[in-house]
C-alpha cells in the first residue's frame, strides 16, 4: 500500500516536470534557453517516472529495465545537450536580444 503511494507520487512529479520542460521549450526566446529548460526538466522528469516504475514493480524484469533506463538517461542526455549547444554556438546562431555577456565568444583558447 505504502509502496504504491510512493510510486504514484513519483510518477505524478515526473509527469509535472516533463510538462513544464516542454512548456519551457515552447515559451523561451532562444536556442540556449530552450536547451537548458528542456534538457534539465525532461531528464529529471523521465528519471522520476522510471524510478516510480521501479518502486511499483519491484525486482522483476520490468523494474530492472527501468533502472537501466535511468542509467542510460543520466549518461546520454548531458552529452547530447553539450554537443548541441557547442554546435549551435560554433555555427553562429544568434543569441536572444537581451543577452548581457557571452564568455564563450570572448575566450580565445576554446575556439
Amino acid at each position, binding site marked *: 500500500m505504502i509502496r504504491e503511494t510512493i510510486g*504514484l507520487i513519483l510518477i505524478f512529479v515526473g509527469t509535472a516536470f*516533463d510538462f513544464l520542460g516542454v512548456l519551457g*521549450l515552447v515559451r523561451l526566446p532562444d536556442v540556449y534557453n530552450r536547451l537548458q529548460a528542456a534538457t534539465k526538466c525532461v531528464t529529471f522528469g523521465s528519471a522520476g517516472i522510471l524510478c516510480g516504475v521501479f518502486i511499483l514493480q519491484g525486482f522483476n524484469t*520490468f523494474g530492472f529495465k527501468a533502472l537501466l533506463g535511468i542509467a542510460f538517461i543520466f549518461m546520454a542526455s548531458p552529452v547530447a545537450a553539450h554537443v548541441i549547444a557547442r554546435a549551435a554556438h560554433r555555427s553562429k546562431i544568434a543569441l536572444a536580444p537581451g543577452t548581457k555577456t557571452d564568455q564563450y565568444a570572448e575566450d580565445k583558447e576554446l575556439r
Partner: protein
Amino acid sequence: MKLVRWILGLIILMAFFIANFFVYDGAIYAKLINVYLFSCLFVLYRVLAGPSAADRLVAVDIFGILIIGMLSIIGLAYQNDFFMDIGLIWALLSFVASLAFAKILEGRSLDD
C-alpha cells in the same frame, strides 16, 4: 498582441487540464498518457516552427527522452514489459542521431 497570445495559451492549458482531470472518466494511467500526448503536440510545434536548425535538433532530442517515460507508463497500464524495450531502443537511436546531426551542423564531416 502579446497579452492576447498569453491569455489564449492560458485558456487552452486550463481547458485541457480541467477536461482531462475532472471531466474525462478513465483510469489514472490514461490521464497521464493524455498529458504526455499533449506535451508531444508542443514538441511537434517546435519542430515545425523552429526559427533555426538547432531548435529542431533540440526538439527531436527532447522527444526521444520524453517517449521513454510515456512508454513506461503505457507498459504499466497494460502490465507488459516489452514497451520498455521499445523506449530504450528509441532513446538510444535518438541519442546517436542527435550526435550525428550536431556534428553536421557544426560544419565538420562524420569522420573528422
